[in-house]
């Protein structure tokens, strides 16, 4: 397997930013770990610190997330995250709905990459029920996953630019561009599945929707356009001096911290750990593909951006490889869904993980639940966003409020998945 060290522009020469303010407290190499359990009463007996509640209604908390910041001037002393504002009790719902019904529900968890959610769920169910997936369906799933990864990273990139540049400024311009390009992929998905977001295109043992005629050509043109526009984004944002000032050396999550917190995906790869489930624990058709994993060493916001942009490119490459060579054959190994009690399992446990755009998205399912075994007994979603967010109390102290927003944006939290 080939391993690339980040080759994208900008990360080759990584020096201490030339025009960083001498008084600014930005770490450059390792995370200056803040203490998440800092006793504020002892640290600040005279209550001089300002408590700033960033969220739950705030333009850049990516949903409803609350950060309680203890500020010394604008410098963060302690950060206490609060999540759960979007908690919908999906795991409890799983104990009531049946295996068949759960697939569309899981689109709503990570609403930026619903494909991965469906896939992780059906993979867990398939291994629980011992269902084989035909080769065509596995290829199609891989293809959809890679397209979804492009769409998800594009949305993240736009939203991150908006965190840096504001909704009424240059950030929103890139946001609109990213949405414009993401739209192309959603159009492709719409053509295939009929929905732009909540696809319900997987079923246990295969896929529900087959490729329509002329679909491959549309995918080709979509990814061609995206690949061209990526160059534009780079000249617009990621090589811009102001952007580099804002992101270089900001929010360093080093490899030790990332692994300790269970952070996977782009954040871990940005910290220099060469770890990607697509290559290291292949699922779907990834064992037949060569996935190139990009890593960077800095672990800061800039490195994370570089990693994600490189992943878009890699996904484009994989889509190009796959799109014309999807094997013929049956789409599913099971009979099409005709009843909500179609799949049953009395016992057993299964775990399946996919590399979602945010990291390892795992589903742990225990069989033999309600509805005479047609529902899981207990289902746990190992959501990568929750793990990624848990780095905030360690990373934020020592940064200013502006950096807090940039760091929060760069870890790419999807609150639907964090709170579930």
């Amino acid at each position, binding site marked *: 397997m080939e391993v690339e060290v980040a080759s994208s522009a900008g990360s080759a020469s990584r020096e201490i930013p030339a025009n960083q303010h001498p008084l600014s407290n930005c770490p450059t190499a390792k995370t200056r770990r803040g203490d998440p359990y800092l006793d504020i009463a002892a640290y600040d007996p005279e209550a001089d610190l300002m408590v700033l509640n960033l969220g739950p209604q705030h333009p850049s908390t990516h949903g409803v997330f609350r950060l309680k910041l203890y500020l010394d001037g604008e410098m963060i002393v302690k950060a206490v995250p609060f999540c759960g504002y979007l908690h919908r009790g999906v795991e409890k719902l799983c104990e009531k*709905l049946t295996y*068949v*019904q*759960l*697939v*569309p*529900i899981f*689109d*709503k968890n990570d609403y930026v990459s619903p494909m991965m959610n469906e896939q992780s769920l059906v993979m867990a169910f398939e291994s629980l029920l011992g269902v084989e997936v*035909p080769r*065509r369906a596995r290829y199609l799933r891989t293809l959809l996953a890679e397209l979804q990864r492009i769409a998800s990273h594009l949305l993240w990139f736009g939203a991150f630019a908006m965190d840096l540049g504001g909704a009424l400024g*240059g950030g929103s*311009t890139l946001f609109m*561009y990213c949405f*414009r390009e993401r*739209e192309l992929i959603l*159009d492709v998905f*719409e*053509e*295939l*599945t*009929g*929905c732009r977001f*909540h696809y*319900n295109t997987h*079923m246990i043992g*295969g*896929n*529900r*929707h*087959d*490729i*329509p*005629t*002329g679909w491959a050509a549309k995918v080709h043109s979509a990814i061609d356009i995206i690949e061209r526009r990526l160059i*534009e984004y780079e*000249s*617009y*944002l990621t*090589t*811009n*001096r*102001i952007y580099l000032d804002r992101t270089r050396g900001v929010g360093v999550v080093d490899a030790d911290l990332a692994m300790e917190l269970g952070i996977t995906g782009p954040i871990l790869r940005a910290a220099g750990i060469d770890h990607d489930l697509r290559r290291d624990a292949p699922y779907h058709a990834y064992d037949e593909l060569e996935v190139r994993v990009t890593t960077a060493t800095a672990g800061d916001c800039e490195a994370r951006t570089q990693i994600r942009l490189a992943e878009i490119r890699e996904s484009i490459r994989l889509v190009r490889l796959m799109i014309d060579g999807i094997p013929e*054959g*049956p*789409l*599913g*190994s099971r*009979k*099409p*869904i*005709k*009843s*909500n009690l179609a799949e049953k399992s009395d016992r057993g446990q299964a775990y399946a993980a996919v590399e979602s755009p945010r990291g390892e998205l795992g589903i742990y399912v225990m069989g033999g639940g309600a509805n005479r075994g047609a529902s899981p007994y207990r289902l746990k979603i190992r959501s990568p966003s929750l793990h990624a967010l848990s780095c905030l109390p360690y990373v934020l102290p020592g940064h200013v409020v502006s950096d807090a927003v940039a760091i929060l944006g760069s870890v790419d939290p999807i609150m639907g998945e964090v709170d579930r």
Partner: protein
Amino acid sequence: MMPYFVDTVRSLFVTMRNVLRKPTTVHFPMERRVRTERYRASFALLHDQAGEELCIGCKACERICPSEVITVDAEKRESSVTGKKRSYAKAFTLDQNACIYCELCVQVCPTDAIVMTRTAQEPAFHRQTLCLNMERLYDNERTQPLTWANASRLIEMQSPPAKEPAKAQDNEDAGKGQAP
């Protein structure tokens, strides 16, 4: 200092290039995008070619609906077309307030009675407006473009061995006149 000016000019170059491109958004209520033939937006109940209601009130859709938005009341009566006695849906309500458009009800329908339409439900002032009853579902059959998918087509597509994907041309009156 100089990089700031140079990069500003470069960013300006990108944005100015986009000024020349055609806008991608449309003004939604006046202008609508063309939706693909699988697009799922709303629902309709179908008649067969003889004008007979296809729904037999079997409640398969009610059972599979993950968000429990469908309620069906069945009754047995004589057909006004063929004169034979069979079961019908007396009341059929689909509450779009909570619908997740997962297409599972279409998938499980044994008679291809329920299909989805391609025009999205307009925003409404009252929740009741978003609740489709049987008359409105049968209205939708006449007034709205239907999607390609119905139960038998989905099953044909999914069941092993898979057939050739459906052609775009024969979707003109998808779902109509396919009484089992």
